[in-house]
């Protein structure tokens, strides 16, 4: 197979995008860990770190990482609904409903955390 096999078919391409999205999710997590380390190093270091995050490059990185994380999460819910069979009595629940409910729950939890964060 050629190295460009994933350009042959749009679904292969989306699969590769999903795989690639992990890089950004991982990079964000590494930064997050660095942030925690900065916190331990004292208020000043942490403040410096926070300020650096306001630079356009970092904002751009986070915007891209956020999009990839969203894509990864949404496809994750979609894929798990293909794997997980949910039965109600004798009937199998349509997987789109399962995926939809999962996404809804995810949004509710995210919203809750966001509210807690901004108000608390």
């Amino acid at each position, binding site marked *: *197979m050629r190295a460009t*096999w*994933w350009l*042959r*078919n749009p*679904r*292969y391409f989306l*699969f590769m995008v999903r*795989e690639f999205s992990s890089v950004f999710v991982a990079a964000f997590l590494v930064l997050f860990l660095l942030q925690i380390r900065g916190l331990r190093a004292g208020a000043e270091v942490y403040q410096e770190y926070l300020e650096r995050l306001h630079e356009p490059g970092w904002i751009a990185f986070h915007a891209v990482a956020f999009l990839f994380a969203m894509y990864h999460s949404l496809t994750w819910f979609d*894929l798990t609904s*293909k*794997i*997980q*069979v*949910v*039965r109600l009595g*004798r009937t*199998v629940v349509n997987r789109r409903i399962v995926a939809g409910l999962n996404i809804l729950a995810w949004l509710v939890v995210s919203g809750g955390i966001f509210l807690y964060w901004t108000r608390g």
Partner: protein
Amino acid sequence: MKASTSRSTIKLEVTRYRPSVDSEPHDQSYEIPCTDDMVVLDALNYIKDRVDGTLSFRWSCHMGVCGSCGVMVNGQPKLSCAIFLRDYKREPIHIEPLTNFPIIRDLVTDITDFMTKLKAVKPWIIRKKEKPLSEGEYRQSAEELERYHQFSGCINCMLCYSACPVYGLHPGFLGPAAAALAYRYNLDSRDQGNDERQPAIASQEGIWECTFVGECTVVCPKDVDPAAALQRSKVATAQSLLGSFILPRASGKSATEGSS
């Protein structure tokens, strides 16, 4: 039912490879008369009967169930008897042998590898103790049947192997159809062969090779959904592995469908 024609001829580019004359596969163009109700296989047969008798391809049932006639049509794996010329607006239509398989000749590929893998997963009912025939059939509820029925629909047409980039990159991979059939027997209430199949399923080149591209399910002409079978096998295998740590000796049918 209409035999009316929106176009009267059609151009095809067909892969030719005759081992005694050709060093490698190449395309050959044909232009043949066509009608709206012709499937790709009809076009191939027209060529074979009236244009070029040396063109070789497999086919038999012409109704999408024998699984012989898979080819790549414009880069997509298809059953040539179940796909209409009228659905391809752009000419020429490219017809190639299924990818990811060695080519024997023209559109004929070598599927020996699949036959070996199929046998490796022991796709038959395994019982610890056979029930004598005199005691009649195994009872099976509609729900028990429904659990595995979808996965028993595989016609071994090889489209999924052709669609699977993992198989293309690592030909050792067990592959979608064999994994789906293994899973089909694991889910069957009459079967007790889960443990015997596990070495082939959960090996290095078994289900864990699958990265869930999902294209096998997209191309499957019989809605077997091998991608689901593979992922659910992973869940079941992981569960039974976990189970064997927590509750040694506990295993059974209940775990195999994924935690439902």
